[in-house]
């Protein structure tokens, strides 16, 4: 009893540190250490070949990255891919959530089916969409021929490859968004819908005034999550298009992979990594400043 009392007397800070300190130390090791290592690398010219060597070069790599034509192109590819992915994932997620929110038979089965895309690795998703979208194996080609139009339908080309990637990415992420939105939908009291019916609101009005408001905060959080996940994405792009055709879908992550692992230019790749990290954090903060802060207050 005395022991329990003494514990109870711990201040919030002491108790928090007691629980959180080991975790923070662990995180420091597994996150901060590589981050520091990356910073060190970005300031050095490292060569593995013919004996390990590291020469200090200051901010030279960063200056080079900023002037790099390929970097700029990749930056634009990343932004376009992210915008499309997030918009699609949020719309698809919302639609799925609304459908799942209806009372229906086999609801458990439908929910299990709908979550399947999220259960497939991004490697698998890459292969799946590569088969779906390429002219040789694609569903477009099969349907065109079935309709008597004898022409291959290929969308993995310079013009559409980013859209193909965005659809695949959204397909993979949408269930996660949907299930969290569903959780929020479940909290809307059904009498609100009854009231809306009495007020003779149209379906659209009901959706805007009753359904949407409690979802807005979750929508914000998941816009952030899907943005971060899309900007970080690598494996899926690596498998589906390999950054191609040409460099049409070479996102920043792909560019970093190539610099670091194929050309073994570790310092340069690390410098580019920090640019990407800045982009991710910057976008998240802007989202929070423009949207999240408001939503947080209104709760």
């Amino acid at each position, binding site marked *: 009893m005395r022991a*329990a009392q003494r*514990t*109870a007397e711990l*201040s919030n800070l002491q*108790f928090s540190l007691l*629980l*959180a300190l080991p*975790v*923070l130390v*662990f*995180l420091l090791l*597994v996150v901060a*250490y*590589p*981050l520091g*290592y990356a910073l060190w*690398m970005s300031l050095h010219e490292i060569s593995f070949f013919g004996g390990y060597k590291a020469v200090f070069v200051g901010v030279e790599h960063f200056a080079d990255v900023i002037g790099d034509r390929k970097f700029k192109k990749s930056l634009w590819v990343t932004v376009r891919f992210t915008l499309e992915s997030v918009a699609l994932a949020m719309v*698809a997620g919302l*639609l799925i959530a609304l*459908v799942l929110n*209806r009372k229906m038979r086999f609801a*458990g089965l439908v929910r*299990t*089916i*709908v*979550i399947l895309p999220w*259960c*497939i*690795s*991004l*490697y*698998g998703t890459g*292969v*799946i*969409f590569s088969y*779906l979208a390429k002219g*040789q*194996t*694609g*569903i477009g080609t099969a349907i065109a021929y*079935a309709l008597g139009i004898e022409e291959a339908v290929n969308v993995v080309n310079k013009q559409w490859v980013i859209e193909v990637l965005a659809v695949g990415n959204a*397909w993979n992420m949408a269930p996660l968004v949907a*299930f969290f939105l569903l*959780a929020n939908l479940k*909290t809307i009291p059904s009498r609100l819908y009854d009231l809306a019916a009495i007020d003779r609101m149209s379906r659209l009005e009901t959706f805007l005034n009753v359904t949407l408001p409690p979802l807005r*905060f979750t929508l914000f*959080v998941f816009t952030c999550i899907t943005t971060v996940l899309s900007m*970080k994405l690598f*494996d899926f792009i*690596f498998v589906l298009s390999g950054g191609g055709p040409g460099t049409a879908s070479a996102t920043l*992550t792909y560019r*970093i*992979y190539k610099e670091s*692992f194929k050309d073994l230019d*570790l310092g340069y790749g*690390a410098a580019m*990594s920090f640019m990407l*990290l800045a982009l991710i*954090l910057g976008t998240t903060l802007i989202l929070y400043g423009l949207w999240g802060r408001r*939503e947080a207050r209104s709760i």
Partner: protein
Amino acid sequence: MSIRLSTIWSWLALAVVLIWTLLPLYWFLKNSLLTPDEIARFPPPLYPLEPTPAAFFNIFGLDYEMADGIVRRGSGQANQIIRGLGNSLIVSAVVTVVTLFVVLPLAYVFARLDFPHKNKLLFAILLAVALPPVSTLIPFYAMYVRLGLSGTLVGLIIVTLTITIPFVTWMLIGYFRNLPQVERLARIDGFSRFETFLKIIVPQGRSGVAVAAVIAFLFSWNEYTYALMLVNGTTANTLPTAISGFLFQHPEPSHLAAAVALTMVPPALVAFFLQRHIAEMNLVDPVR
């Protein structure tokens, strides 16, 4: 009349959702039932003309005799598939358990208690969510080469934790915050803070904990980027890298499709479990 119209709409919406979900899956997984000859056909067949389960035997190294007497030989990658299955299970299980041990107290502290510098510390953790794997891959790789950790399960587990810990923390903070405020009552009943956490909070939030476990499991089960670089071609190979070998100089799309179907089984099982619990989750802003 209007009821009927809305019923039609909702059936239509359901159909759209099911097609969106299943069509890409169907289009690829049908390959698992095709013969190599059918796969080489152009235009691609809409459905398997003579479905054969051969690929599902082959990926485990077993020969399969077709109706016409042709024997489809077991894949030489069967060893990798089986070893990858084992490794993936080990990595996912360890990662899930460690993640929960680490994340539960952390999320609880951040969700329920106020203390100085809390937001700064929280932000540091959330920063980890934003770290791209391709960026930490480089330091991890260089570090692992020196420490002799590349090509080991331990190395892969450590690296996977950097993904699961921040993400699951983010999710659980919102969840814990929404639980009823019971700490004061618990303390009056003589519970210490540890007891409150272990005996009251964790059991009360068990569906959230279960979902967090499942999410950690899925993240590590599906992890490919780190595995591709750190354990590819070693005895620590995981399933996603093991199956990625089917498309090369001697293409075996049917084997790949069968293997992808195999990798879906454990997540599909947990999905069935997940769908009941996740609707009870409620995620709100971790940074206030």
